[in-house]
């Protein structure tokens, strides 16, 4: 016999029919996101594996190549992403407390810091391009072993590039969330989408936490 439930609270209005209650729906959404993040770990994992193999094979080459990257810009970007993660965590909190204005501000703040990250990354990429460090026909290296140095920069651009794509997607999603929040979509504790995007944003932050020391701080400076 089907169990008929009457909308006892506001929350039950957001429960899709395949779920028993709002808690089950939230748990399912979070579990789905964590499983997606596990596939993302392996997506980036292939690149981290390639990095590991070549770092152990051409350690000295990687140290010389890494010195051409700006630690100051890399560290600044790390700080920018860490603070953006703080904003995101506070945004999820605001959504849970149904604080609409605060939520919109924090979502926009997180997106803005994402844009700051991308701008600094653009400055770095431009500098690499001018210095002929972009792999391909224009790559120039006056030091030893230019071929394997180029390999380091392939890995650098592949890893930071894939990460930058993730940040760009994140900024877009955050702006959409801010618009939906402005329209009152997450009112009355219907905060699931905000929490899910938060998990994604923090994951992208974690990836950078590993990219920064592995690419910018190879060996000692």
């Amino acid at each position, binding site marked *: 016999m089907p169990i008929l439930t009457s909308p006892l609270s506001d929350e039950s209005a957001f429960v899709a029919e395949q779920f028993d209650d709002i808690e089950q729906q*939230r*748990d399912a959404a*979070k*579990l789905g996101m*964590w*499983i997606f*993040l*596990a*596939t*993302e*770990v*392996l997506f980036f*994992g*292939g690149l*981290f*594996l390639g990095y*590991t*193999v070549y770092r*152990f*094979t051409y350690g000295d080459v990687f140290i010389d190549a890494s010195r051409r990257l700006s*630690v100051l810009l890399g*560290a600044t970007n*790390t*700080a920018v992403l*860490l*603070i953006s*993660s*703080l904003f*995101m*965590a*506070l945004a999820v*909190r605001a959504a*849970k*407390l149904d604080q609409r204005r605060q939520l919109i501000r924090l979502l926009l703040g997180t997106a803005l810091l994402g844009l700051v990250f991308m701008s600094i990354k653009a400055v770095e990429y431009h500098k690499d391009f001018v210095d002929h460090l972009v792999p391909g026909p224009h790559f120039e290296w006056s030091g030893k072993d230019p071929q394997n140095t180029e390999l380091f920069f392939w890995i650098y651009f592949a890893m930071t590039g894939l990460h930058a794509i993730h940040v760009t997607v994140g900024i877009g999603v955050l702006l959409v969330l801010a618009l939906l929040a402005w329209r009152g979509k997450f009112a009355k504790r219907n905060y699931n989408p905000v929490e899910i995007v*938060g*998990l994604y944003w*923090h*994951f992208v*932050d*974690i990836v950078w*936490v*590993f990219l*920064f*020391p*592995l690419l910018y*701080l190879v*060996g*000692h*400076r």
Partner: protein
Amino acid sequence: MEEIIQPKTYLRTCAGLLALLGLTWMVAYVDLGPFNLIAALAVAIIKAILIALFFMHIKGSSRLLHLAAVAGLMWLLILISLTLSDYFTRGWVPLNH
């Protein structure tokens, strides 16, 4: 209903993360030989754990979510350890050609 965490916890987590960033940065200017890599990775792992525990609410979430989070890392470890076991042992057995 889920527990609402105080902003102070998030601020402390963020302060800790920024302090750890400063630590990696400083350690990178000291020559520790192979320990530069180990120190950098150790700090990165601590930072990742802090983000997962407090920002991603692994602390206080269900066992099922813990399992999903750890599963991703397990597969990554399998990927890395099996591949490296190949690369690092290639010279062990001499080949006759």
